[in-house]
């Protein structure tokens, strides 16, 4: 999948958050997006996934050359977009396994329950999240457990492009390595990712092809993965005026 953001201007509740973001992610590429708090990183991930409260004021989002602005979140997911949430949402009374079944059914309506069980249990055991499958979605889970469940969904849904919004926040080193290498295993010419993070550690595992810095709703700097180490040494302040 080729994703193109063209001069994207986005507002939320009447307030302008993104003011002209342009970015091209080609198939097989991993891009990192860094930037200080409040720079608009999570807005970008929400608007890409089709959150109805974010309004595109100007510009366009193209997938393989076609605008997806008129598509809702469900339709975008079916195209192969996936968002790993920074703060995964709790849903009382709905089990993780029920969500997974519905989600996988949306890709393959003929999926049998037996095949579903098998697919899920393989991936769940790899990520140590079997305990969570019959529990309500994200209810009572620790921050780290929630992130594991996001990656579980990612691995099962096999998107063409994944947006990982602060996958690393709230994770200890072991979990971070486990999840980052699981994502790394997906790397192929059919898979690309936008990794939103504050910290270069995850980038040590995921090895992005490009690093971008977002500040005040604009990409102010782009470079190779060395840019991430520069940021770690000097902070955003030195790079962003």
């Amino acid at each position, binding site marked *: 999948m080729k994703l193109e953001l063209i001069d994207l201007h986005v507002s939320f509740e009447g307030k302008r958050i993104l003011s002209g973001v342009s970015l091209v992610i080609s198939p097989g590429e991993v891009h990192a997006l860094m930037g200080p708090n409040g720079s608009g990183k999570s807005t970008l991930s929400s608007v890409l996934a089709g959150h109805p409260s974010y309004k595109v004021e100007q510009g366009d989002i193209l997938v393989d050359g076609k605008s997806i602005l008129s598509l*809702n*979140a*469900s339709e*975008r997911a079916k195209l192969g977009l*996936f968002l790993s949430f920074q703060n995964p*949402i709790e849903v009382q009374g*709905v089990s993780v396994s029920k*969500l997974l079944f519905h*989600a996988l059914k949306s890709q393959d309506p003929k999926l049998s329950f037996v095949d579903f069980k098998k697919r899920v249990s393989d991936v769940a055991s790899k990520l140590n999240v079997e305990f969570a499958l019959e529990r309500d979605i994200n209810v009572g889970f620790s921050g780290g457990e929630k992130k594991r469940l996001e990656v579980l*969904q990612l691995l099962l849904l096999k998107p063409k492009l994944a947006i990982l919004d602060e996958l690393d926040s709230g994770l200890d080193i072991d979990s971070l390595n486990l999840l980052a290498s699981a994502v790394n295993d997906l790397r192929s010419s059919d898979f690309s990712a936008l990794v939103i993070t504050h910290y270069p550690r995850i980038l040590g595992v995921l090895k992005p092809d490009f690093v971008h810095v977002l500040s005040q709703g604009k990409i102010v700097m782009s470079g190779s993965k060395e840019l991430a180490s520069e940021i770690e040494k000097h902070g955003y302040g030195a790079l962003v005026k």
Partner: protein
Amino acid sequence: MSGLKVLNEGYEEKYGFNDPESFVFKTAKGLNGSIVSQISAVKNEPAWMRDFRLKALDIFGKKPMPTWGGDLSKIDFNKYTYFLNPSEKTAHSWDEVPADIKKTFDRLGIPAAEQKFLGGVGAQYESQTVYHKLREDLAKQGVIFTDTDTALKEHPELFKKFFGTVVPPGDNKFAALNTAVWSGGSFVYIPAGVKVKVPLQAYFRINAKNIGQFERTLIIADKDSEVHYIEGCTAPVYSTDSLHSAVVEVIALEGAKVRYTTIQNWSSNVYNLVTKRAFAYKNAVVEWVDGNLGSALTMKYPCVVLKGEGARADILSVAYAGANQHQDAGAKIIHLASNTTSRVISKSVSKSGGRSTYRGLVRIPSGVKNVVTSVRCDALLLDSKSRSDTYPSMKVEEPSATVAHEASVGRVGEEQLFYLTSRGLSKSEALSLIVLGFIAEFTKELPMEYSVELNKLISLEMEGAL
């Protein structure tokens, strides 16, 4: 009619069919002493029952319409038919049920359910019980499961001892109405020590237009016995209304356990005004599991009177109000003995301008020691047109009581919908999951067949909701 169609989305194809009205006996429209006497005569009832009915009719006439709860102003008691008998007798095998009526119950899946998981089945069509069957092994243990009219003839002592003792005719206007014109319903007696592990089920179907259905159910669980009784109700979609006004009396003697599960799924032109009450004696347990879908107006407040020490009451209810529907439902617990406990969980969902009301009462008089009670009512609104009200009344006069009460009103969160749809679920699918999750505490208490059915109904309601 097209408007009605929308209101009953999914209902019509499944339950909204109607069959031509046919009957062997039918009273004239309207209500008076001669009609009541006619009903009693056609049933060959003893004189005491006829007099009891007439006395109740008198009370009905004197009691004013309730002015609280829902809007009852459109009910015109003169336009209903109070008794309509579609068949000569109650059959005990489905083959004996008149073909057209059997077809109806076939479509509703009743004979199949009986074979699969039920200990006994009763089926009422209009005013008459058309089918009744109890598994032989249960009959051998002395279990009685029959229609209430037959019970009056075959078990007169038991009947007279308990009938009208839990819900007397003077209790409220609709209980008086039911007592005057009752017909059909289930009569259950479980002998001491007998534990019936499979549910007994009754199914009530209104078919004709402008009819009143007034079944009367009496359940007596003798000492240390156990029973689970289930009832389901449906009616076709007509543009004119029908009246369903039932009375249910449950007596759980010392150590008995009774669970009464109701799934009512009326079309949106039915007035559903029901009095359900149970007496729980020493160490008895009574559980009302009460699901209300559809109807124009439902007013129903299952009640448990805890009369003996150690008795326990559990009332779990769910109400779903769609367009032009008002669910005024709740629970009543009266603690009359020390060391009794009660729990009420009420869940309501309102959509497309529907209105759900929780109206509840917990009473703990002074001197009744160490009562523990908890009441929780949660409401979920699916849009800004819909409405939810809560009127929980806690009359606690006793300082030793432990009382917990929680209420919440929520809207379906945009973030939850976004999260689920971002995984590829459609919006209506996501909404169904959220609503079903909200009522999961209720559905998990239902037998599998019922929870599957209820989930299907709710999912159908959610289609086109957004």
